[in-house]
């Protein structure tokens, strides 16, 4: 569809901020006391307090990554690590404080919930303030709640899986998350249950200089299916905020999990996220990862294919405009025979933005008949922009088929000329071609989101140089 909107002064639609009201805010900076304080406020079991403190020590000693995007401007002492926005969680939008309700109304969450979602969770600063799930799912034994509630109500499940896919030693930001995590989702799908409508989480940062550290754990038991969707937005500030999430997913035998992200943080947000899944026999894990917002993103959703016949898939879209660097990609670790994986990455850089695809494919000895297919396509819209591709393939098994291909190009002049001859102006033609370019990925995400995504990219593209 041709977009008729030619407003050249597009502004980030979710950049508004609300007056900050909270019931508790930790002091600026981080030390052991702050970590203890968060844990005691949440009345956590002692094993979790110990886990946090251990992670804090690891965080202190770990180096910053020496590769990837420029993180030198992050000042860990200039961040608030925990803000509790409300006294308690509610399950009706009407019960939320006005500022928070207005925020979600503007983003359109309650509207979407009525139309096409099985469950919704909304996180504001550090805590999930709203949550609901269809009664039918609860009856079937599906659990969908925030991580803190999960720890309180289902300690045995959480203790069994928490930190098993991403250890607290994994990387500096995973260690940081492990020490100060708050909120995020806990999803448990019992044997054989198929959750047909998506479960959705919305993450919103409102405060300045804030760090959001949500922690998500999804467990899909044998033969089950669940689709989890997350969306993220934040106000525009001149100071930086940090978002360092950890997402762990366990896909048991014959189960399938799809995890869709539409990341649209404002440009003052550092988005440094660790996402990983462990996939057992004939399980399928699909990551659909769309990065449109944030100033800097470093995120590489991973699949550890540990069971015979397991399959991993990453579909990724990255858009980098003015002053943005999207360093995104995927990791596929083949540890068992007959495992297959596919990575499709589409990136667009314009107005001086930079996109980098960074990926790892590893086939371990014994992963016979592993099949890997990776394709990365990049579009560079103007001469100020930049695109990189950094794939890494480590193959230690003979009976495998590994393919990787990448292309970098600009929008086809012939296609633009053709569209011009049909009476479509340049801006619209560029929008059409870009939407066509990302179409293989957008058609995989829920309709409401793909329309939103196409619209966003159209708007971002407008006024870009030809």
């Amino acid at each position, binding site marked *: 569809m041709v977009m008729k909107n030619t407003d050249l002064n597009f502004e980030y639609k979710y950049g508004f901020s609300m007056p900050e009201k909270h019931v508790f805010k930790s002091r600026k900076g981080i030390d052991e006391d702050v970590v203890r304080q968060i844990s005691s406020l949440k009345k956590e079991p002692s094993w979790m307090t110990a886990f946090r403190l251990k992670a804090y020590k690891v965080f202190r000693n770990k180096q910053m990554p020496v590769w990837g995007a420029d993180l030198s401007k992050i000042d860990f002492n200039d961040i608030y690590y925990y803000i509790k926005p409300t006294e308690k969680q509610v399950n009706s939008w009407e019960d939320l404080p006005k500022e928070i309700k207005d925020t979600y109304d503007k983003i359109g969450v309650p509207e979407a919930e009525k139309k096409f979602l099985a469950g919704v969770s909304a996180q504001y600063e550090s805590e999930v303030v709203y949550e609901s799930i269809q009664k039918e799912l609860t009856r079937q034994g599906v659990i969908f709640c925030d991580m803190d509630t999960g720890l309180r109500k289902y300690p045995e499940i959480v203790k069994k899986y928490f930190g098993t896919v991403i250890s607290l030693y994994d990387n500096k930001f995973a260690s940081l998350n492990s020490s100060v995590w708050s909120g995020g989702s806990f999803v448990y799908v019992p044997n054989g249950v198929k959750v047909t409508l998506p479960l959705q989480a919305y993450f919103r940062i409102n405060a300045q200089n804030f760090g959001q550290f949500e922690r998500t754990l999804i467990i899909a038991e044998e033969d089950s299916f669940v689709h989890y969707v997350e969306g993220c937005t934040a106000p525009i500030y001149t100071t930086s905020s940090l978002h360092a999430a950890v997402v762990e997913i366990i896909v048991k035998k014959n189960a399938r999990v799809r995890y869709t992200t539409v990341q649209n943080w404002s440009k003052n947000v550092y988005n440094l996220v660790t996402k990983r899944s462990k996939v057992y026999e004939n399980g399928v894990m699909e990551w659909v990862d769309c990065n449109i917002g944030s100033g800097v993103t470093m995120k590489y959703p991973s699949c550890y294919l540990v069971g015979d016949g397991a399959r991993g898939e990453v579909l990724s879209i990255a858009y980098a405009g003015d002053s943005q660097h999207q360093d995104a990609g995927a990791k596929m670790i083949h540890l068992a025979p007959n495992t297959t994986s596919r990575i499709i990455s589409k990136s667009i850089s314009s107005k001086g933005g930079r996109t980098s695809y960074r990926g790892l494919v590893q086939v371990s*000895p014994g992963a016979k008949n592993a099949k890997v297919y990776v394709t990365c396509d*990049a579009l*560079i*819209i*103007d*001469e100020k*922009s*930049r*695109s*990189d*591709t*950094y*794939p*890494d*393939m*480590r*193959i*230690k*098994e*003979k*009976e*495998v*088929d*590994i*393919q*990787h*291909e*990448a*292309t*970098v*190009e*600009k929008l086809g002049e012939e296609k633009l000329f053709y569209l011009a001859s049909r009476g479509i102006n340049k801006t619209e033609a560029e929008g059409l071609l870009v939407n066509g370019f990302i179409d293989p990925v957008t058609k995989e995400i829920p309709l409401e989101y793909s329309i939103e995504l196409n619209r966003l990219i159209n708007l971002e593209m407008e006024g870009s140089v030809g």
Partner: protein
Amino acid sequence: MSNKFQIIKLETKEKRLIYDKPGNYSVYFENLSGDLIFDIITPGVQLNIYGLYIGKKNCEFKINTFQNHKAPLSMSNLLIKGVFYDESKLYYRGLIRIEKNAQKSHAYQKNQNLMMSKDCFIDSKPYLEILANDVFCTHGSTTGRLDQEQMFYTKTRGLNEKQAEELLVEGFINEVRNLVILGSKTTPESANNDSGRVHFVHLPE
């Protein structure tokens, strides 16, 4: 076309080749370890880079290539093929970088590896850094066993497993060697694979 080979022994770990005159160039190397830097600083350069690796026993190759486009309107095309037996290892990192002013550059990079033993190891990193927009760049990398359908067909023609393998490997290798022969009239002296001795051949055409 000149049929002279310039054989350069690679004495240091790093070799920087500077292309400052338009023309067709070919570079060929076998079993080479080290850093090869190709600086293209003028328009009109057509550069072909061919590499061949045959790893046996516990041979270990570490090769980095860098197609550095600093001027517009040039082309570079890299093809590296490898066959790995026993416990041989390849660490390959290839970078194409197109600088901002190197508009209308075309750069290609292809790395194909055959794994002939379960104990060999391949680490392939075909990297791209593109800072200009009006360019065309691709890279491709494949790693795996011999095509199983080709193996089957060859065996139905009466060849045994070993003969079929040898025939297909020869075809795989010859794709590179033939390209080099086409670019000149004599064949380059072949490297002694077992000792890992390297020859570096630079052919101005």
